[in-house]
């Protein structure tokens, strides 16, 4: 057997317990193959347990274990870093908990907080740097740590309660679908629930839309006075959050 055939057989054994592939290693290899199989699954389970502590608290240890088994069966790891294996777990939770969307939203929040923690560094713009900005031509550069997810429940409130050891609130659905943003300010990963307007605004600004164009769109949507006030309010919030890391004019 060539080396590549051997490695394909080992992959088949690890990911799907392929008995035919295992048999090609010979009878004497059976105990060792069991060790590698156990190590493989235990390693992936430990990664998910560590990454989704509060999601596990919410659904309970046994249900979480079933979700882990389903995820390991559904998806094999591919990245150089084991941490990346957490990225797709919220999608598995979405499949398993169709009727309980807060579970996948909790999972997404935990995953995004973990990713923000090690995202690229960028210093936030300070208030002192705003004096000379020509806002008619300004384009904002948003922190590379930002991630945006959709939100239909009070998952952020549930997560906060679980994180501080309080009794979590009952699930509530939002009056209308919103979004959640996760980012890192300094060394601290943070999150905030937002409405669809701010969600769209952040997506557009991150993609390069000028602040003046954003103001125009807000005026179109809400009228002159409220539109400008809302655009200014969002900008003030983004600056206070440390989301803006550069302003080009």
């Amino acid at each position, binding site marked *: *057997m*060539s*080396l*590549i055939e*051997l*490695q*394909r057989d*080992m*992959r088949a054994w*690890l*990911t799907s317990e392929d008995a035919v592939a295992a048999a090609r*290693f*010979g009878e*004497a*290899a059976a*105990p*060792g*193959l*069991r*060790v*590698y199989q156990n*190590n*493989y699954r235990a*390693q*992936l389970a430990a990664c998910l347990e560590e990454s989704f502590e509060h999601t596990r608290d919410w659904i309970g240890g046994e249900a979480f274990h079933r979700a882990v088994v389903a995820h390991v069966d559904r998806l*094999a*790891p*591919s*990245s*150089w*870093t*084991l941490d990346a*294996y957490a990225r797709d777990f919220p999608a598995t939770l979405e499949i398993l908990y169709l009727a309980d969307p807060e579970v996948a939203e909790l999972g997404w929040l935990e995953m995004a907080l973990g990713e*923000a*923690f*090690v*995202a*690229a*560094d960028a210093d936030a713009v300070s208030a002192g740097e705003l004096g000379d900005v020509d806002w008619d031509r300004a384009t904002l550069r948003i922190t*590379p*740590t930002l991630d945006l997810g959709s939100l239909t429940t009070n998952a952020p409130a549930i997560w906060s309660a679980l994180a501080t050891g309080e009794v979590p609130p009952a699930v509530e659905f939002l009056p209308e679908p919103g979004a959640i943003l996760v980012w*890192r300010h300094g*060394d601290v990963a943070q999150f905030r629930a937002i409405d669809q307007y701010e969600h769209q605004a952040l997506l557009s600004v991150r993609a390069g839309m000028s602040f003046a164009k954003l103001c125009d769109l807000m005026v179109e949507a809400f009228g002159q006075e409220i539109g400008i006030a809302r655009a200014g309010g969002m900008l003030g919030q983004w600056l206070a959050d440390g989301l803006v890391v550069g302003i080009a004019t």
Partner: protein
Amino acid sequence: MTIAPFSGFGLGLRKPHYAEFLDTPIAVDFVEVISENFMVDGGRPRHILRDVRARYPVALHGVSMSVGSADGVDGAYLARLRALVDEIDPLFVSDHLSWSRIEGFNSHDLLPLPYTEEALDLVCANIARAQDALGREMLIENPSTYIDFASADMTEWQFLDAMCARTGCGLLLDVNNVFVSATNHGFDPIAYLDGVPHDRVRQIHLAGHSRGAEMLIDTHDRPVPASVWNLYAYVMPKLGPVAVMIERDDDIPPLAELLAELGTARTIARGALREAA
């Protein structure tokens, strides 16, 4: 081999001990970190590593290079590691004689290789590519293994010897792994320690293991046992200057316990070297 010899005693730096390493001087000559934990884009882990590096020499120890992959080493991985190497200027860069990745699948385990001529050619080509990409020679660690391939053309120590000769790499000799594999596969650990190229050993790992249902498992979750200390005492007089460290990855005890274990490593090394003289 151009890797500068370094003589000293160190610890694997693990999360529960970050604060102590940053707050107070710790009696170690170097620390070793898991490379992949710091090959991230930014954030607190990179800041911590920079602060630690300002206080101690740092060895980068990888678990995902996969020098045994039949489809080669991953260029993007090497570029990421190179960036970390350039920033940290580590004492050593090491990884394992194993494979973990094939055709887009990454097992995140140190999987075994059959010690054949085909595997030797492949491993040497992969190490050569990695060393080119990193701009420096590496240390390769002997693994704990749970399968003994009937197709092998040579022993593990013969494989390591040939690998070092062909690539110029050095060895990270994990004494616990020698004991675990020797027990699991029934070879003589003394023959192994006699057979490895002593002049290539730049670093030693000492760790504990546990007894699984059918074989010993390299768990790094308990103190170094007497069986491993004995092998360490046997091999030390054969080696030149070497960086010795305790490797603990699970059930991590207070730092003082690991420092006491490192004290044992110092004492045994002194005794073994005195006896040999």
